[in-house]
């Protein structure tokens, strides 16, 4: 509860800065219209993503589930504006996406923190790009490190942090920009189960307090059920959405609750049915 409070406070603090950074607060809607991706690999055209259509409401938390290499990450990258789609278009908050923007921040599985900067400067990186003065951005970085429970690690370097701590820093680095959309590409995938559960709960708390739109890619079916308003199941390459599940279980959802497990089992069946027989079913649940 105290945490929720903190987030609300910070929400206000950031809203005060909104004119300086020209940012929206809260979530925005996403429209994904016929987005596809092809690329050349060793002289062959590879279709990574079949045309995908998807409507995401502002403040919705959607989990994307599917086998490795099915194009989920590519889709997030395209929404982030880091690579162009081969076809189709994306509208974020009604405006066409034409490149990267700090209203949509991507979080990577490997955290992608900069090893040449200490924790505090990592968190402040985006603010520096936005032209915020040094003292101000250091203050905000400290606030957001407190939010992710990493006070006292401001001057640590990346190699001194555990995997879970790195993801917390990455989360702070994203949240400090007050993005309307968080695009999370298996951010907890490499973590141990305990750390993962903790971070899931914290993410849900932050989401509930800020109302951000979140797209969350995962391999883990139960994680998807525990977090998502909706779970979208992707087919193997070329990725397309084969089925959509609305999860109406009450929050917060326990990973061990039988309803979560039942729902996960149902989704897992669809996931396996969509997989080619020659492929290993490597998804965890």
């Amino acid at each position, binding site marked *: 509860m105290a945490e929720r409070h903190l987030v609300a406070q910070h929400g206000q603090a950031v809203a005060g800065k909104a004119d300086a950074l020209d940012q929206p607060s809260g979530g925005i809607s996403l429209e994904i219209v016929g987005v596809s991706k092809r690329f050349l690999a060793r002289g062959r055209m590879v279709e990574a993503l079949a045309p995908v259509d998807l409507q995401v409401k502002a403040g919705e938390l959607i989990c994307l589930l599917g086998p490795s290499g099915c194009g989920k990450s590519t889709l997030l990258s395209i929404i982030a504006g880091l690579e162009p789609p081969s076809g189709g278009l994306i509208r974020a908050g009604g405006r066409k996406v034409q490149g*990267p923007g700090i209203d949509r921040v991507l979080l*990577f599985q490997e955290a992608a923190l900069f090893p040449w900067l*200490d924790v505090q400067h990592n968190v402040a990186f985006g603010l520096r790009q936005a032209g915020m003065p040094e003292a101000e951005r250091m203050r905000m970085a400290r606030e957001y490190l407190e939010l992710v429970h990493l006070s006292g690690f401001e001057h640590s370097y990346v190699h001194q942090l555990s995997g879970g701590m790195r993801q917390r820093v990455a989360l702070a680095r994203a949240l400090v920009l007050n993005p309307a959309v968080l695009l999370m590409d298996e951010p907890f995938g490499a973590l141990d189960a305990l750390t993962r559960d903790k971070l899931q709960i914290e993410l849900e708390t932050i989401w509930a307090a800020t109302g951000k739109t979140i797209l969350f890619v995962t391999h883990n079916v139960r994680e998807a059920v525990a977090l998502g308003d909706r779970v979208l199941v992707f087919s193997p390459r070329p990725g397309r959405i084969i089925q959509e599940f609305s999860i109406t279980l009450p929050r917060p959802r326990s990973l061990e609750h039988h309803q979560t497990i039942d729902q996960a089992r149902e989704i897992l069946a669809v996931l396996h049915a969509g997989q080619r027989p020659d492929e290993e079913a490597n998804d965890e649940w």
Partner: protein
Amino acid sequence: MSGEMTTMLAEQPHLGRARVMPWIRRLIFYLILLSIWEGIVRLEIWPPYLFPGPLIVANALWEGVTQGLFLPATLVSLRRLAIGYSISLSLGLVLGLLLGRNKLIQETVGSLVLGMQALPSVCWLPLAILWFGLNERAIIFVVVLGALFSITLGVEAGVKNTPPVYLKAARNLGARGVRLYTQVLLPAALPAILNGLKQGWSFAWRSLMAGELLYYTLSLGNLLQTGRDLNDAAQVMAVMVMIVIVGVTIDQILFAPIERRVRERWGLA
């Protein structure tokens, strides 16, 4: 959460002793070395003007410094080195970034740089003398070519080995244009760049000495040459000691702090 931190702190008390011991061992080694040297000299196999003992060399070093010869010579050499190395650094950074980021330049200029790297830069000296005359510019030219390709290749390697995810993350957080280079690509490549800088530095230093051996104005290289002309092995050895001192000092002042920082930040052993 702070498991790694506590183990790091636990090792602190031994650090003081661990730091002093190597120095003591080093001191003993050099004392033994100097005694052997002095012992051989005392056997009087070679005349002292060809093979002077450590005391005579130390005396020559002292006189060289106090008579106002060695320090001005060192300054002349350092000035050339500073000019030449700065030029190499600026060109090498730009060239290395271009090579690392552009496939066409990599395929064409890249092969040329590799070839040039195989050519000892002293080989440029005759050509440089033909072009510029035997003067300051010829020497600096050779110094520039000595360091340039090492620096270029170091920057190129660093840029190429930078995980693309850093650039993605940086663009995602709002970094654009030149800032991607100055705030992401270059710092990310720093460990590899540093190797190139160090190698370039030592090549520049060697090239400078070779160039100065031929060029008759006061400089460290030239003092070696005059020592030979005067049949004064003590001066030659004293200048050699001077050259080692300057080289080691600059390495300690210039590169050691950057290296320490890189190790600390990246967590390299």
